[in-house]
């Protein structure tokens, strides 16, 4: 295993739940982590790292605009984020170690390059856990799930899911709790869909829930019940908790707030993520992938703009990201949550600085960006610099292991705890970010 990770074959030690709430440990700077995953690979040159002086076959058609940081410019697709650039830190030297969506996604979400990854015919059960699974295991949880992933399905590409999306070698019990959020704010929980009569809308109180469960137990044979009981235990526990039900209910949000996030799946998912953070969920991952917003049929991977990169970014991706992410930052700040919520926004890689033969951009893992805000991050700075064409870092590269180490460190999973859990040992935080 490279990149600071550790072999997933090593048996995981027992959980070491944090007890900072009880005062036994110092509170972490980030009580919650909100990861916005731009699946598919957003173009760094067309968003946060423009190269207007590069040759025409590199630079792209977008002009640059000033930000609140002297000398720092974004493309004109991000005017709102440019106006908020003093609220977040930008890393321009992220690197990954694979150019395929699934292996790069696994590396990006676990910090580790495991042998036998997706491209080598590996299996999810051999893979290291997602950062969210690590934090969830460290913190534990009561009532609300500790790691929620917002998506209509498993994140990945047309070939299959990203192995690093969940618990990996720790087992399915450490996978994220999945929920889908539609553009109208409707929340679906896949684990509940096997039982038609047990829709969340009917479960107004615990008594109703228990009555329904009793009925189902009577009607289902024991084998069936054991099956879904194991799979859906967390889902029903969630439904039994009024606080959790409220957290997942976007209808409780004023129309003004829902409108501010926008009537898109990505926008409403970010609003749901804010509600979950507010309710105390330690780790929420919002996935912009083919299961959130789709602009190609059949094989759209979110930001995987092999064709018509510039048209799609100008019309759809750029404005959506700029508007929704700005609203998210504003909302968290206005509610006093930004200080204790680490917000990270990145994809698995960037896109080719050199425009391809059909006027678009392909995968590029040697250099891309990430955005960091709140939760102990020092805002208003740019970490690292890419070379004049945006092809490689000109300063120290930031690896996925450094991303994961920084996230976990801010969330209170310090080196000793990581060593105990067997993840990201020897990793170090991103210089200048904290």
């Amino acid at each position: 295993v490279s990149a600071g990770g550790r072999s997933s074959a090593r048996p995981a030690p027992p959980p070491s739940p944090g007890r900072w709430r009880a005062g036994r440990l110092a509170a972490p700077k980030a009580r919650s982590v909100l990861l916005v995953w731009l699946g598919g690979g957003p173009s760094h040159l067309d968003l946060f790292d423009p190269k207007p002086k590069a040759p025409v076959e590199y630079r792209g058609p977008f002009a640059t605009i000033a930000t609140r940081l002297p000398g720092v410019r974004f493309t004109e697709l991000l005017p709102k984020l440019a106006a908020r650039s003093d609220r977040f830190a930008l890393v321009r030297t992220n690197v990954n170690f694979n150019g395929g969506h699934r292996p790069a996604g696994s590396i990006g979400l676990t910090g580790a390059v495991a042998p036998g990854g997706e491209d080598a015919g590996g299996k999810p059960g051999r893979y290291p856990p997602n950062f969210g699974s690590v934090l969830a295991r460290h913190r534990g949880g009561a009532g609300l799930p500790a790691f929620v992933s917002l998506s209509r399905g498993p994140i990945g590409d047309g070939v299959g899911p990203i192995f690093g999306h969940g618990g990996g070698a720790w087992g399915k019990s450490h996978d994220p709790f999945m929920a889908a959020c539609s553009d109208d704010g409707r929340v679906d929980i896949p684990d509940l869909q096997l039982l038609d009569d047990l829709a969340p809308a009917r479960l107004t109180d615990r008594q109703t829930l228990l009555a329904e469960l009793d009925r189902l137990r009577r009607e289902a044979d024991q084998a069936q019940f054991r099956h879904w009981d194991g799979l859906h235990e967390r889902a029903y526990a969630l439904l039994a908790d009024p606080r959790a039900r409220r957290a997942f209910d976007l209808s409780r949000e004023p129309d003004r707030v829902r409108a501010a996030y926008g009537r898109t799946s990505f926008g409403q998912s970010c609003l749901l993520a804010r509600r979950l953070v507010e309710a105390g969920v330690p780790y929420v991952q919002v996935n912009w992938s083919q299961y959130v917003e789709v602009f190609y049929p059949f094989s759209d991977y979110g930001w995987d703009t092999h064709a018509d990169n510039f048209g799609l970014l100008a019309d759809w991706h750029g404005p959506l990201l700029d508007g929704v992410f700005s609203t998210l930052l504003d909302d968290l700040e206005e509610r006093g949550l930004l200080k204790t919520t680490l917000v990270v926004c990145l994809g698995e890689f960037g896109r080719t600085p050199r425009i391809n033969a059909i006027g678009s951009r392909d995968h590029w893992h040697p250099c891309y960006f990430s955005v960091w805000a709140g939760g102990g991050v020092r805002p208003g700075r740019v970490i690292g610099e890419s070379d004049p064409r945006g092809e490689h870092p000109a300063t120290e590269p930031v690896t996925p292991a450094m991303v994961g180490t920084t996230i976990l460190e801010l969330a209170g999973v310090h080196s000793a705890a990581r060593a105990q859990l067997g993840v990201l040992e020897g990793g170090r935080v991103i210089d200048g970010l904290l």
Partner: protein
Amino acid sequence: MASSDPAPPRRLTHDGRRKLAPAFRSAREIAVAVHVSPTLVAILRLGIEGGPAERMHPSLTAHQFDPAFSADGRRHAFALSATSPQMVLVLQDLRDKQEHVFRPRDARATARRPAFSPDGTRVAFGLSDVGGHQIASLNVEGKDLRLLTSSAGLNASPAYSPDGRRIAFSSSRDGDFEIYVMDADGSNVRRLTHSPGLDTRPAWSADGKRSNSASSSGTVAGSRGVFAAAVVMPRSPSSAASGRRKRARHLGQRTRALAGVEAAIRIPALQSGQEMCAKDTIRSPLGPNARERRPPPPASMRAEVVCASFSSFAAASQAAGRGPIVSLASLLEHDW
């Protein structure tokens, strides 16, 4: 050109869904690409007098973008997601119920933003295929492909002049997107704008009477990125100098001339666009004090512009001199 006060902008939609590229199907109906669900962008048609929006192609499950119609309303073109992730151009004869499909060569190539020639015999469009991002044209049967540009950078969003002799388009050949014009056969390319920011999606005035040049055939307008402005310019930059100030007064606008451009006109009726400009534009063509320079409602815009900004608003106006002048429609609920 209209000189009377315009009717106030009339909002046509309230659903908050993202909409782009409105086009007049008739004098009383607009077609627009709408993000109707997380997994579908579809072309909807809606009457300018109200009423529910309806899908133009209800049987299609793939994304549809960029509706366009011939001046007589007989023909319809749009971009359609076909396979992974190619986009083809669909050309329909609405009268004879015939359909032709143009498929680019490369499996990932795209054909976007079609525009009919005034006589309805050809369609210009942006073709992203082997050879780069160029302007091309086809006959209405999807044949006789002609590449009209062969430059570096990206070339996109063609628009025929009312007399069909010229095509305005946007190109990044010299840096960021600027507006250019060329003869309809691709020759005689000239750059019209020299501004920071995204100048794209040009459109021409309907009657072509505004120009003071005998050889001119119309006025070009385009959208300007985050600034949410429409740029109105004569076809020939050199013809602008003498008449620039007078024309600006005639338009009833508070304007500021830009290099090679007759006037930059903000669209204050769009509250969302205003807010975005006031709060978020770091640098705009009007400079840092854009908020204080907010002009009065732009009467002339009624007859000038069919534009769709990439990020801030969508607007529609009269098309090809048909029907009533339509008030500006704020098609977006949000300021992005």
